[in-house]
């Protein structure tokens, strides 16, 4: 799947789920993400695994400092 962008709770998210170069960034800051086969993980939300990178990114965005604060 090609790189795609979305927004969540005021944060901009960019996701590339190509297995060879899987990347997720929030407000331009890259996340460390790991996993495959519907079990994605990041130390930014370190106590659960996610079915998709979209779910992972939304969960991290929900606890990321708002740009205006």
């Amino acid at each position, binding site marked *: 799947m090609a790189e795609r962008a979305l927004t969540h709770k005021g944060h901009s998210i960019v996701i590339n789920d190509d297995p060879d170069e899987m990347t997720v960034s*929030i*407000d331009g*800051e890259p*996340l*460390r993400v*790991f*996993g*495959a*086969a519907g*079990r994605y*993980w990041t*130390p*930014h*939300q*370190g*106590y*659960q*695994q996610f079915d998709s990178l979209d779910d992972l990114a939304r*969960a*991290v965005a*929900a*606890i*990321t*400092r*708002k740009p205006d*604060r």
Partner: protein
Amino acid sequence: MAALRKRINQADMSSDQRDRYVKAVLQMKQTGVYDWYVQTHIDSMWMQTDGTMNMWAHHRPAFLPWHRQFMLDFENDLRTADTALTGKPSDLTLPYWDWINYRSKKKFLWWGRIWGDNFMGPNGSGSNNEVTSGPFQGGGTGWVLSYNSGPGFTPFTPVGPAYLTRQFGQDPNVDSLPTQEQWDAARALTVYDTAPWDSNVGVNPAPSLNPVRFAGINSFRNVFEGWVPYYDSATALPLNVNLHNRVHVWVGGAMGPMSSPNDPVFFLHHCNVDRLWAQWWSDDPSRPYLPKDGEPNPTDPVGDPNPLIDLQGHHLHDPMPPWDGRNDPLKGTMPTITPADVLNHLALGYGYDPDDRVALTASGTP
């Protein structure tokens, strides 16, 4: 032998104990000691500047012994802070949050005790989920969260807000705390851990093949850490975040990322995790910690955080970083502590009250 320190249920603390506990934590924050625990926890699952990724304390066998030493150090620093404030030898101990049995015998919620404004403070509120009352409200001149990683580690970005946040039960997959049935199912397992020694142990990629109530899974550690789906029956949908992990996600907010000790309730949660591990081990102290020394590094079959799972720090007699003799900027020369050193909590000088152990002594023999 000195009398055991007794760690008690937070619901049984006196108002004086709660007050002293909070003041000691705030004192630790002021001196920078508290943030050492946040930083060390970040370092335990974060990337060094050379690109290597640590897994000192999670997704791996040393999850339980590493956190036991972490909690013991915190308790000792808490007592030091209490002594500094009162001028007297401290009898404070870590309280535990029994997140399974949070109701009294009369079914009144103990909720107000832990989440009261004179202890941990309440749930977050507003669009930012900010904790706006109690001793740990803040940002600014109040309780300011730390996101610093240690020397030799890459910066931790993006970061959360400077103030404490909580979102009780708001994660769509985690609207409840762990249950007695789930803990009983974990406690019934008899093998501490097994290859590939990571968060995939006991997780079957085909959900229909997963065992009901953790039956037959050879990794108490991975089940208790919370990575193994829980099926209440053969036809039930899975719960995918369980036990230890489930509590982190249920509290939400600052308890979610690797900087989770920013929320002081972290220490009450992990005190309960330690208590439950003690229960499991007390059921049969002859159960060995695994892996034993010399176990080779396995290759992760499904691409967990490191393709090659580095077991250094996880064998029975491996020093557990940062308790590996390193020179720490705040603590000086760290002692060398291995999983074998901390398997028997009674030998470390503390117990739990009430204590349901039936077969354990400080010497480790029934």
